[in-house]
C-alpha cells in the first residue's frame, strides 16, 4: 500500500515578482515555497499512513534539482521516500506533457491496487488545476477533485467533493487519484526526529534514461515538443490609466465623489 503525493516547488508569488525584459518570469531571483495545496495533499497521505502504518508515503516531484530542498523538508514531515523527476528532456512541458511524465514516473514506481495518488488542487504559478486529472487519465484510474474530507475503508474511498454551492459525496475504489483543497486538513510541521532522519530516507532521481522505456514516454509526448500548447506572446498586465485621487476624506470629498459618479451616470 502506497500513498503517492505529487508536489511542486513554486515561486512565492505573494511577494514581489521579477519580470525579465523579454516578459518572462525571472524565477532565479525569486524565493520558492512548496505549493500550498500540495501541503494538504502531503498531510492527507500522512494522516492515512497514521491509520495504516504499513503504508508508505512516496513523494514525486518534477522540477529542477533545487526542488531537492523541498523534498527533504517533506521527508522531515514524515514522508518515507522521495523521487525527483528531473531532466533537460522534460523542460518546457505544458500540463499535458507534465502529467505524461509524472504518470510515467508513477508507472515506473509501480501503481498497485491499494495505492492512492494525492495532488494539490492547483499550483499557484500556473493555477490550472489540470495536472492531477490528467495524471489520472493517463494512468486510466478514477479521480476525485476538490476533496474536503475523505475516509478509506478497505479499498473503498469516500470523498466529500466541494462544489461552489455545496458538495457531493463520492465513492470510488483504489487505485485512484484525489486532488486536495485547504479545507481538507491542516498540514503538520516537521519534527526534530524527522529532520534527523530525513537524510537516511530513500531519495531517487529519475531522469530521461530512467523513464525512457516507459510506454508513456515518447519524444512527442514530453517536453516542449510534446506539449500541445505553446506560449504565443507574453506581456505585463495592463496598467490602468491613472485614476483620480480625491483630496481629503471628509464630507465634501465624499460628496465630490458621488457628484462625479452621478455625472458619469455610474449611479
Amino acid at each position, binding site marked *: 500500500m502506497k500513498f503517492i503525493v505529487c508536489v511542486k516547488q513554486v515561486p512565492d508569488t505573494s511577494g514581489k515578482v521579477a519580470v525579465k525584459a523579454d516578459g518572462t518570469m525571472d524565477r532565479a531571483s525569486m524565493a520558492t515555497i512548496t505549493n500550498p495545496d500540495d501541503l494538504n495533499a502531503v498531510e492527507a497521505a500522512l494522516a492515512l499512513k497514521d491509520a495504516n502504518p504499513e503504508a508508505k508515503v512516496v513523494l514525486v516531484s518534477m522540477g529542477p534539482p533545487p526542488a531537492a530542498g523541498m523534498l527533504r523538508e517533506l521527508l522531515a514531515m514524515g514522508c518515507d521516500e522521495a523521487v525527483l523527476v528531473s531532466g533537460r528532456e522534460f523542460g518546457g512541458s505544458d500540463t*499535458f506533457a507534465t502529467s505524461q511524465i509524472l504518470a510515467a514516473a508513477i508507472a515506473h514506481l509501480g501503481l498497485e491496487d491499494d495505492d492512492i495518488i494525492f495532488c494539490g488542487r492547483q499550483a499557484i504559478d500556473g493555477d490550472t488545476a489540470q495536472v492531477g486529472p490528467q495524471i489520472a487519465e493517463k494512468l486510466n484510474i478514477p479521480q476525485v477533485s476538490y476533496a474536503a474530507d475523505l475516509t478509506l475503508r478497505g479499498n473503498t474511498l469516500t470523498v466529500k467533493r466541494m462544489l461552489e454551492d455545496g458538495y457531493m459525496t463520492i465513492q470510488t475504489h483504489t487505485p485512484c487519484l484525489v486532488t486536495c483543497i485547504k479545507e481538507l486538513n491542516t498540514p503538520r510541521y516537521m519534527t526534530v526526529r524527522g529532520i534527523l532522519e530525513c537524510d537516511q530516507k530513500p531519495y531517487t532521481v529519475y531522469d530521461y534514461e530512467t523513464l525512457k522505456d516507459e510506454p508513456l514516454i515518447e519524444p512527442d509526448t514530453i517536453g516542449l515538443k510534446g506539449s500541445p500548447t505553446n506560449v504565443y506572446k507574453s506581456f505585463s498586465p495592463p496598467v490602468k490609466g491613472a485614476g483620480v485621487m*480625491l483630496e481629503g476624506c471628509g464630507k465634501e470629498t465624499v460628496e465630490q465623489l458621488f457628484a462625479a*459618479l452621478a455625472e458619469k451616470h455610474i449611479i
Partner: protein
Amino acid sequence: MSTFVNTDPNAFRGVWVFCEQREGELNPTDFELLSEGRKLADDLGVELCGLLLGDDVEGLAKELGGYGADRVYVCQDPRLAHYTTDAYTKVICDVVMDKKPEIVLIGATNIGRDLGPRCAARLHTGLTADCTHLDVDVAKYKEFLKSTSTLDVDGMKFDENDRGLKMTRPAFGGHLMATIICPRFRPQMSTVRPGVMKCAPFDQARADACVVELCPVSLDVSDLRTRVLEVVKEAKTAVDLIGAEVVVSVGHGISKDVKRGLELAQALADTLHGVVGASRAAVDAGWLSADHQVGQTGKTVRPRIYIALGISGAIQHKAGMQDSECIIAVNSNPDAPIFEAADYGIVGDLFQVAPLMVECARGN
C-alpha cells in the same frame, strides 16, 4: 480512439460550448460562454453549438439558443443525471470525436475544471485554463494587444490567415499575461472563469431557430468507476457576487472594529443594491465566509461599481476585480497598491469615510 486523428486542423469545424446544468438548472456561465463563442463563430464563419448532458434535459436546449447557439447537441441518460468524471468524459469525447469541432469552451467551475483536463488528455490536445480573452481573428487580436500591452505590435510579424484560437490568461498569480495557442491538435480547448465574459441579452428569435439534436449515449459499467452517494446544496444563501452590479468589499482594514466594519459595508451595499465581498485576509480571519472572497483563489467579478474598504490591493486580489467598470478605494495608506487600480481613491479611515458614503448614497 485509435481511429481519431486530430492533427489536421482542416478536418475540424465549429465552435462548441459545454453547457453545464445541475439538477436541471443551467449555469449562468453557459450564457457567458455562448455569448463569447458567438463572436468567435461569427469571425470564423462557422456554427456555434452547445453541448448539453444530463437526464431528461432536452427541454433546456432552446434557452441556450437564445444566447447564441445555432445548434444544441443533447446527450441524455439517467446515468448522466449527476456529474461524474468518467461518464461525462466518455460521452463528451465520443461526440467530439464524431463531430470534430475546432474549439471547445468549458466554464472553469469546480465541475469544468475536473472535466476539461480529463477530456483534453483523452483527446490528446491542449487545454488552456482560466482564459480572460479569446480571439481567432488576427486583426482583432492585434487591436487587443495594442490596447492592453506595451508590445510593439506593428513591429511584429503575424500570419494574417491564422484562424487558430489565441487564448490569453493571467499567469503567475496575475503578474504576467500570456497568450497560449494550440497549433498542432484539435479541438483547441479552453476554460473560462464564471463572470469573466459578458453575457449577451437573450434573443427569443434565436432561441426559436435553434436546432436541437439528440446524440446517442453509449456507456458501459467499466466507464463508471465513481458513484455519487449524495448531492448537498448548502442551505446558506450563497452571495451572488458574480452577477452583482455593485460589490462593496472589506479587507483586513476593518480589524479594529470588525462588527462596525461589516455593518458599514452591508449598509453601503444595501443602499447601492449591491452585495458584500471580501479580501482573503478578511475571509481567513473568519469575518466572512469563503464564498465572499474576490481574487485569484476567490471569485472574478466585474460589477459596475467595486468599492474596496481597507483592502491593500495585493495582485491576487486585483486579479479578481480589476475589470470592474468603476473602482473606488478607501484606504488609510496613501501608498496602498489598490489605488493603482482605482478610478477614485480616498485616503482616509474607512470608519469615517464609509458612513459618509452611506449618507451620500441614500441622498441619491
